[in-house]
């Protein structure tokens, strides 16, 4: 894993992005679960990243943490398609 494809900026080097956190499996997770607990999976990890050295957009990244394969990168929040 050396690049991410930003929906705004296109393929960029990984060092431009900053990982924030892995997301809970359950959308109804309470505050403690969302803050402290992390889902561990060797096949699929859903994460929040930010393109800090680019458009500074917040991204949802889905990837395989055992192989580095990236399944999806999309923009988070209002205006996201």
């Amino acid at each position, binding site marked *: 894993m050396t690049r991410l494809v930003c929906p705004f900026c296109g393929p960029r080097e990984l060092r431009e992005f900053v990982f924030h*956190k892995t997301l809970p*499996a359950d959308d109804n997770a309470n505050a403690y679960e969302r803050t*402290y607990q992390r*889902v561990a*999976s060797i096949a699929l990890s859903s994460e929040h990243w930010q393109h800090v050295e680019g458009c500074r957009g917040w991204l949802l990244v889905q990837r395989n943490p055992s192989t580095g394969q990236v399944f999806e990168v999309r923009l988070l929040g209002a205006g996201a398609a």
Partner: protein
Amino acid sequence: MRLASRRMRRYSAWSLLRARLAGDRYWRPLWSGRTLQPAYDVLVVGAGGHGLATAFHLARDHGIKRVAVLEKRLVGYGNVGRNTTIVRSNYLLPENHYFYEDSLRRWETLSRDLNYNVMYSPRGVVDLALTDDAIPALARRGNAMRLAGIDAELLDLPALERFVPELEARRTRRFPIVGALVQRRGGTVRHDAVAWGYARAASALGVDIIEGCEVTGVRTVGNNATGVETSRGYVQAERIVFATAGHTGMIGTMLGTALPIETHLLQAMVSEPIKPLLNCVVVYVSPGHGETYICQSDRGGLVMGGHLDGFPSYTREGQWHRLEDVVQGALELFPRLGAVKILRHWAGTNDMTMDGSPIMDRLRYDNVFVNAGWCYGGFKAIPASGAAFAQFVATGTAPDLIRGFRLSRFATGHMLDEPGQGPFPVRL
């Protein structure tokens, strides 16, 4: 205490002389290949430093007879063989510095306790300040340590120059050195020898060390686990200990409970061997390049490491830009290293907890124990962790030394957040 066994030869000056005379025939395997039994009093999963040390103390201090250590690959294949071998107890928070000080005291006598030379070298750990505002932070940490009776000294430039002349502390630099916090008893230990020494000593006490045996599941009845499914069949156990650094999150998934742990990669590297250059461990945060730590192994290679890669991964493939950061940080302090080649570099998986401190507690079931979350500091903790965790598993009550490391601290708000950065393993 004497390690009595038919299989194990006790090492001494006399035994070395005999070995010299007898040639290779004298040497025997350090731990014996035993067959997996159908049932055990305690099953330890993971033959790394913490697992082997726990098994050793269970057998030696608590007289538990039937102990096995199950290992997916080989003894010492994981982080105990991938770290940068540094031992120290220079922590700010009381729960941490008392625990790591207990560990450092055990390192001092470990070679004797195991009858195996682990090459403890108290060469000094030097935390450099490259900015003015790093000094009050180091002073605060040093004062906290001194109040707990742990050695720490804040050095000004002349004193630092006397302690580490090779640093050329007063030389003009882009980011000049301002001062340093030194722990003289800190230093390095030969990491592989720790795994081998504990495995040998545990094996001599009758612990079964089973390599190439992967645990795939846990059988349970109500609030108790009854045994584990392995790649070699089902094994019954009274108590189960997980010491699977780097993959503890997956143990949580296996037991159906999410943990406050993310798995991140940490890289380290070693240069080609060169003549003696640096006689202590140097740690600093280089403005612009992040954290760098550097020491020289007894073989002459410069061992270097830095900060985490920055995102969860099980690949053990380090990011090049992080490697570059560490090398740039090292060159900034020692420009003459520009002519030295990197020989090897590697990455290890780290259990990063949400406050940066370990977890030593029961996990979901009354008789399942987890020794995890050592972040990037597990190696130095091995002797204290083994002794304290064995007491916990044997008696069912956590000793005071590790009570702060309970899992429930995240829910009750008693985090041990040493760097004070909130519930994230990586600073944003």
